[in-house]
């Protein structure tokens, strides 16, 4: 299914993409294409610019050179925002609200994937029984799982994930991999950063290496 015609549509196309801050080069120039149904890996050491690249693709930062399209639109444009969802080092969860309430907010802002249910999703990421706890009292890994559950509920076709494996135990890593596989099978695409310490289970369609 992954290589059907419909899903070969390019999700991200970057040509000579580069970013500099105060005219110091952070990354690039990069050329890559991420097609629907595939998972891309951004590899690089600490400080090589992985987070910065994801922020450029999300439209939070403006690239200083080159050209990039997200589903044919400029990153950060309304179309691109409707199609992409991201998870960064900061999870964007409200500590005073419960896990479930946090999911509901995400749905209110981004909409909900057809047939997805917050309760079921919390169970799927291994948070049975924590739905009503304030997020502030969850452990580091449990917070991460909440953010993953929110992500998986959204209708976004493109995921931009910054170190989704950090703070997770073995079961949590399996959960991420299962979510990624399901997402790709459904015709979505994901871009995942990693510094290569955690083994990535899946066949990765493209790897973007950022030199240090």
């Amino acid at each position, binding site marked *: 299914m992954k290589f059907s015609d419909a899903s070969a549509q390019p999700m991200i196309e970057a040509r000579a993409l580069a970013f500099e801050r105060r005219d110091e080069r952070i990354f690039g120039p990069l050329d890559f294409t991420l097609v629907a149904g595939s998972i891309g890996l951004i590899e690089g050491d600490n400080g090589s610019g992985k987070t910065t690249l994801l922020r450029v693709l*999300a*439209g*939070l*930062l*403006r690239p200083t050179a080159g050209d990039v399209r997200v589903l044919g639109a400029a990153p*950060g444009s*309304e179309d691109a*925002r*409707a199609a*992409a*969802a*991201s998870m*960064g*080092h*900061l*999870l*964007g*969860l*409200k*500590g*005073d*609200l419960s896990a479930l*309430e946090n999911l*509901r*907010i*995400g*749905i*209110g*802002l*981004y*909409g*909900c*994937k*057809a047939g997805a249910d917050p309760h079921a999703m919390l169970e799927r990421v291994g948070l049975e029984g924590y739905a009503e706890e*304030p997020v502030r009292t969850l452990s580091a890994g449990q917070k991460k799982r909440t953010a993953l559950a929110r992500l998986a509920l959204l*209708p976004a076709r493109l995921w931009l994930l910054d170190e989704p494996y950090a703070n997770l135990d073995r079961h949590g890593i399996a959960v991420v991999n299962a979510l990624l596989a399901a997402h790709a099978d459904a015709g979505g695409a994901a871009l995942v950063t990693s510094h290569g310490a955690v083994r990535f289970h899946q066949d990765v369609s493209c790897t973007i290496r950022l030199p240090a």
Partner: protein
Amino acid sequence: MSAVGLADGFRAMLQRDLLLAWRRRGDALLPVLYAVIVATLFPFALGPEHALLARISGGVVLVTVLLAMLLSLDAVFRGDLDDGALEQMVLSPQPLALLVAARLLAYWLVTALPLIVVAPLLAYMLGLERAAQPVLLLALLLATALLALIGTVLTALTVGTRRSGMLLALMLLPLAVPIVIFAAGAVGAAQQGLPWVAPVAWLAAALALALVLAPLACATALRIALDS
């Protein structure tokens, strides 16, 4: 996949903010307490001379309420910035101005409304004439809304910077001066039995304008501030 409507985003944000305020309802009371403290301290600082207190009561209550609002203005986007929720807002498919409008409405409801409720009491304690009370209330209603709208635009501008607090105060002062002048003008006129409609009308006109423009300006400012 079910697309998400505009009303959904607005409702989700408003609900979220009200819920958060409710969870931390103690914090929401802070501005009120602050205003009470100021109004209580004034007689101590000036001596309990009734005529003097009554003379300045309208102005003191007004300044106090607006300053109490200022106090919490800095925090309008701070929490969302620190935990990454602001980024999620900016990245969501909803128009940012809409989400900001919801945030603003919640802010006004949580911060200004309790202040407006308690203001007549403070004014009474300081000896404001009964006749001027409705005018004070009206002036406060308009002035707080206007201040909230203008203030959040400036807050949005400083969101990405290190020195937000001072800057905010610095930038807000020139914009707050006309508001205080008109609001205090109305109350002062009412205290002296003069007509007070003109300054109130000016405030209302400014408010109408700000209601339309502020969310848009705020969204623009947020985008500028986050782009680093």
